[in-house]
């Protein structure tokens, strides 16, 4: 078996734009799920609304494509009502951190046994490129035509502070690392949060001087700072460059969790 077996072949072609990073993240997630040896009948995908949230529609298992921002709340009901099911949430930066921010922090606080994969393209892709809570300061979007004036959320810091058991961040460049991170997330009881920075050529790249898809992926790679390296910089009292983001495993712990199969 491989991740391919988890796709709903009769739903292809998909809606994603050429060069979209979401497919990479879905592949990595399904590859990790596949390695768990779980039965398709026992696995459920839940999502909200957005390009990223369309993922469950392409997967053969039972799936719930819900309302904007509410995926974690729906998934909480699925998981608590039947802890035998493995529940995985696909979400986007807007879905998770704007309209769904409250459900996100409460999911982390409860430490409910879900694995949440956020495809963070730093923009509202589906609605055509409006600013999101993770749009970097100065970046262009259709609602920040002069450059985003607000500070973005650090989704992983948020998840750690709110109590998630497992937190890691990678990008669409780091496919092997991402796959491994999702697998650890799936194995860890409690709330697992995996942030995947992705390129969105249509809504983000186009406006922010990434002429080629590869330029954006290269940007993500070049601005990734490995956790070990960032720890070293911090230990030496050196600053972390403002345009870099830390990647790697950022939290792994064993707080009491909710909804874990007895």
């Amino acid at each position, binding site marked *: 078996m491989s991740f391919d077996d988890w796709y709903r072949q009769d739903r292809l072609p998909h809606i994603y734009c050429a060069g979209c990073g979401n497919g990479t993240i879905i592949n990595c997630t399904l590859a990790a799920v596949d390695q768990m040896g779980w039965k398709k009948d026992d696995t459920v995908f839940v999502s909200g609304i957005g390009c990223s949230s369309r993922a469950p529609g392409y997967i053969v298992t*039972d799936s*719930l*494509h*819900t309302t904007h921002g509410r995926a974690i*709340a729906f998934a909480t009901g699925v998981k608590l*009502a039947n802890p035998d099911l493995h529940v995985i949430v696909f979400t986007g930066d807007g879905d998770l951190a704007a309209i769904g921010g409250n*459900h996100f922090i409460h999911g982390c606080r409860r430490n409910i046994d879900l694995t949440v994969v956020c495809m963070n393209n730093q923009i509202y892709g589906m609605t055509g490129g409006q600013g999101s809570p993770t749009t970097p300061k100065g970046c262009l979007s259709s609602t920040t035509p002069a450059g985003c004036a607000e500070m973005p959320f650090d989704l992983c810091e948020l998840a750690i502070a709110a109590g998630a058991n497992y937190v890691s961040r990678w990008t669409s460049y780091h496919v092997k690392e991402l796959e491994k991170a999702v697998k650890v997330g799936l194995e860890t009881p409690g709330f697992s949060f995996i942030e995947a920075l992705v390129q969105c050529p249509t809504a983000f790249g186009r406006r922010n001087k990434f002429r080629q898809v590869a330029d954006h992926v290269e940007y993500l790679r070049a601005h990734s700072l490995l956790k070990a390296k960032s720890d070293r910089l911090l230990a030496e009292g050196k600053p972390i460059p403002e345009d870099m983001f830390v990647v790697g495993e950022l939290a792994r712990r064993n707080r009491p969790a909710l909804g874990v199969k007895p």
Partner: protein
Amino acid sequence: MTRIEFWQGNTACAEGALAAGCNFFGGYPITPSTEVAEIMAAKMPKKGGVFIQMEDEIAGIASIIGASWTGARSMTATSGPGFSLMMENIGYAAMTETPCMIVNVQRGGPSTGQPTMGAQGDMMQVRFGSQGDYAIIALCPANVQEMYELTARAFNLADQYRVPVFLMADEIVGHMREKIIIPDSMPQIPRRPLVKGTLPFKAGADLVPGFPQFGKGYGVHVTGLTHDERGYPAATNPQLHEALVRRLVDKIENARHAIADFDIINPDAEQVFIAYGAPVRTVQQVMHDHPDKNIGFLRLRTVWPFPEFALREFKNVKRFLMPELNLGQMAREVERHVRVPVVSIQKLGGELTTPTELVAALEAPL
């Protein structure tokens, strides 16, 4: 053995739900419905079910919809402000044909309004509050016994028609205490499972598809987008959208005779009261006090789908009189089905319509 209790309406609601096999409650506290959640918090775990206090009412209804897809009999309870927050996901439940049970113990609105006072101001919101065309079932209890029995029935209706079902109570009935006779058991009509090999959103003659429970190997995709019979998004297909929405409405409207629950008293009367919820009590008092007046009464327990055919039972009616704790929300629904005048007896402020007010309306010249 049946037993007798002296209970508050909200207690009867929670107990009725448990008797009906409710095994998942997700909600958020709000006056005057909170007792329902509190009783569930205490009793549900002992019955092996799940109680969870969610972070808000949006999450409350989301959790019960998620639970329902695993086969749970799930419910939430709220009041005005929380009910408004639930609207988007109520539409989602209607669109995805998710059985679930929502209690609204109505209080005075708009906005925060009158948290501790009774009202019936959400009767149109329950029917039309979420975007688009759809249909739901709404039941209205007028006493503590009905808080128990209608709650239990709501779960059966939700499973039978795959639709959100609402117990539209009010603060007066929710907080009144009176005698209740607890039956031995409540009949449970289970959800009809989807026949394997059938498309998950393909319905037969009753327009209600079988239920493809999560974890049972159906591999069903559930979406609030317009979907085809496979459950796959097909949001730009005009014919498919129209057929789907019409089916969602028709499966409830066509079944309104089976769903209906009402009493007809004195069908030969010329003056006929119509009431649901707490104002039923006032009408009963007036009929008791004035046996000479030959008063007719249509007492509704199902309000949506509206049983318009019941109105035709009153062959000699010269006018309908309708006391409501709102500005005539259901009177407007009655008006569109009849040719005689409909007198809307409106009461706002949180107190129940008085017998004097009803007698004055009866005695007003025709």
